[in-house]
């Protein structure tokens, strides 16, 4: 009899555990369904953007932007209530990935923050203008990493990886490397919502799939686009202190004021990792291009190509997290560097009161 009881327990315990997991899964599914059905509270940026593009449910969608700029009234298939909510959530994720503007971070961003390690990075930092940067006149800008133009080029050949990358895979690369995060499953709601938003942007801007538009990617700056002085760490440091340090803080660690992010980290644990394309030593043309077109805020396009490359080179040599595929040893080394270097540098700088080298700054300015 005790043998029978033991056998029964041996069978029942794992089976009950599996049943418990199933019940948990059903519960989680119901929770998710509820979140997907709930109305979305938009961030101020998204409210303005989506209102401008007149996003509303209906049998037909006509973009006011296209109508205004070309005079053509292009009627596209409309959106259901469910589509609208997905697009709104996608916009929220891009604008405020960390959920700082949300009332309930977990509920409103659902899983977005789960996939990013640091507390600084947001999609909007690189994909500026909520993935659709325009000047005051409403012109889309060259090399502004537009999500819409990126979607039209999805399933196309990616020249960095040599693969044909679906849009969902591109997003996963963003999560893993550019925001030093975890990998969402390709079927995850985060990925689906961002895709829905990006697709909506293509409709709103009348971009056609398969075309390459200027606003896709960054306006890359290769070494051949400069006076060929070589990339210089010292010049970069001087320039960083002069142009970037006020917002991004000493050593690029970012600044947080009153619990809100003021400027994101360019190095350290909250930054992108060593396998991101923003990392100068991996792809040397993208970060300089981004800096020249987008930085410093309010004074865009004021830096020369050489200056952008120098700054990018300096930033990328600050300690930052290792990439996922670089193995535990590199990760350990980077972790030690990120922990040890900032205080050491601070001590050294306060001891010597290091001033930017006047001669070098002058040379770089010319």
């Amino acid at each position, binding site marked *: 009899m005790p043998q029978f009881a033991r056998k029964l327990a041996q069978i029942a315990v794992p*089976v009950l555990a599996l049943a418990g997991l*199933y019940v948990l*899964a059903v519960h989680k*599914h119901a929770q998710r369904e509820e979140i997907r059905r709930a109305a979305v509270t938009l961030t101020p940026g998204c409210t303005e953007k989506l209102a401008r593009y007149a996003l509303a449910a209906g049998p037909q969608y006509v973009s006011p932007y296209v109508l205004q700029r070309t005079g053509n009234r292009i009627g596209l298939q409309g959106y259901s209530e469910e589509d609208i909510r997905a697009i709104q959530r996608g916009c929220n994720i891009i604008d405020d990935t960390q959920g700082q503007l949300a009332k309930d971070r977990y509920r409103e961003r659902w899983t977005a923050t789960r996939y990013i390690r640091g507390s600084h990075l947001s999609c909007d930092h690189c994909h500026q203008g909520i993935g659709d940067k325009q000047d005051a006149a409403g012109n889309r800008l060259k090399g502004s990493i537009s999500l819409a133009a990126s979607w039209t080029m999805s399933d196309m050949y990616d020249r960095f990886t040599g693969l044909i990358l679906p849009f969902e895979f591109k997003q996963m690369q963003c999560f893993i490397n550019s925001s030093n995060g975890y990998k969402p*499953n*390709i079927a995850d709601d985060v990925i689906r919502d961002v895709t829905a938003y990006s697709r909506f942007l293509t409709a709103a801007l009348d971009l056609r799939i398969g075309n390459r538009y200027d606003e896709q990617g960054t306006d890359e700056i290769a070494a051949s686009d400069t006076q060929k002085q070589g990339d210089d760490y010292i010049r970069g440091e001087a320039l960083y202190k002069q142009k970037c340090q006020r917002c991004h803080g000493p050593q690029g660690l970012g600044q947080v004021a009153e619990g809100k992010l003021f400027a994101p980290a360019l190095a350290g644990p909250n930054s992108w990792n060593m396998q991101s394309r923003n990392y100068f030593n991996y792809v040397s043309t993208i970060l300089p291009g981004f800096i020249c077109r987008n930085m410093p805020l309010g004074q865009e396009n004021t830096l020369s190509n050489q200056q952008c490359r120098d700054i990018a080179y300096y930033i990328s040599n600050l300690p930052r997290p290792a990439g996922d595929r670089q193995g535990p040893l590199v990760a350990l080394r980077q972790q030690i560097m990120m922990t040890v270097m900032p205080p050491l540098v601070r001590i050294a700088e306060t001891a010597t009161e290091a001033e930017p080298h006047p001669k070098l700054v002058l040379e770089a300015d010319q």
Partner: protein
Amino acid sequence: MRALALALRNQAVLWRQLPAINGHLVVALTLALVTLPQAVAFSVTLAGVPPHFGIYAAIWGVFFCALLNPSRVFHGGPNTAMSAAIGVTLLPVAAPFGAEYMGLALTLGLMTGLIQLLFFLIRPLGRMLDLISEPVINGMICGIGLFLIFKSLTTFGGLPVNTEVEWPLWIAWHSLLAVLEIGNLHAVEVGLITLVTCFVAQQFERLRNWAILLGIAAGTAYSEYLNASLGLQNTLIEQIGNLSSIGLIHPSRPLFNQDSMPDVVAIVPGAVTLALLGLFQTTAAMRRMSRKTGGFTDSRKAIFSDAVSNCLLPFLSSLPTCASFNRMWLVHKLGIHSRVTIALSALLLLLLVLFLARWIAIIPMPAMAAVIILLGANMIKWQDIRPHLKSRGEAVVFMASFLSVLFLDLFGAVIVGSVLAIAYSKWEQANPNISLRGNVLKIRGNIYFGSLPVIEATYHVAIARVDNLVIDFSECYYIDPEGIRWLAAAKAGHKVGFLDRRSGQDRRAAMEARAANDERRTGPRRGKRDRRQRSEF
């Protein structure tokens, strides 16, 4: 007349043996039925290739091994760890189930075979495999078991497989969350039914060998019911799919051209891992099974059979083969030890597949994932782990090799495991048992460069304490040149006596007589040197 009588007698013998032949057939059929779902699951969920790769491995891999391997219980065919290693190696290089991926999988198999052939041709390399100790292999097997469970989670939940390569533990955690939150509940149900059926069947001695088959049958029946009542477009349960390409022989060619060269170079470490994984498992399984059955088969012959099979299999669109411990255990338990039966099972499987392709095609993928999860869980056995936790050295080696599978990739784990195993055995040798009783310093173990510091430490304590020290090395089984030099120096420096009970007076006298004989024959110089060396002892 005589010939007729002989033929009649032969026939009579055949007739009398018919029950036995019947038994062979039943065993062969059992083996074929047990191998089939494993073959499909390994190729589709682990290696990322169409099911016919695994099925051909289960046919031709088993057949070649039965022909080439003299062991009577050896059962080759597709293997869990190897299939997983193929997936891990190829995922970063190409998209699974694509033409390039399949070509590269064949190239990987061929390279594996060639590397294994090297292990056969270079004898010391093959002997190195024997230096991998049991804790290392068991640690790796446990690690791979856990790895399999994590890896099949997404398929279990009907989710797309994440195609990134690395899979640290947090990926596993996120996969579990994804299954709970966004998994396809129909797929989860099918997987759970398969898992529970398999598990319950396993608990009963009689059903144990049929557990996987029963589980898959239950899972398939449920998924067919769902598809019939809700429609495939609503359930979205992935199935194995079309198997119509299965034929008698499916010739193929490994991908090897100028375009693919960078990829081929990139997968070379993977091929080394695969070759080692295969050979480890083959030699370890042979060793364990031989000890169980009381027989002995030279592991070199197993290496030869694996290597040759793996060189041939890529041309028959098949995964590489190596020993399967669970199937070998089954062969042993079924009680018929015969290579003919095993070869027969391979051919029976071919017949089965030719006629059952339509039924195999509707097996749902979550059921396959459930089978892999169960096999992974079965690889982690407390009775295999417990003995290694008793000694501290073994526990460290076991844990390190277990963790290195989880935190490094498989190649890293193989390297760590090998280094640890060798370090462990060296460590054992480097700590001889030294005891001081009266004025006798007794050394049990090796006297060599590694153990000398340990011996010296005790020796100097003893020298200070005792006047006429005698070193007893009659229980030393190995002294290297450095040890001899040290002994000579000890003898010259202090007044130390040597005691070696192995060479008593009579033996010494005989040796001296022989030395004198040598001296007479080859001249005085060599003999003198010999005697001088000996007298130092």
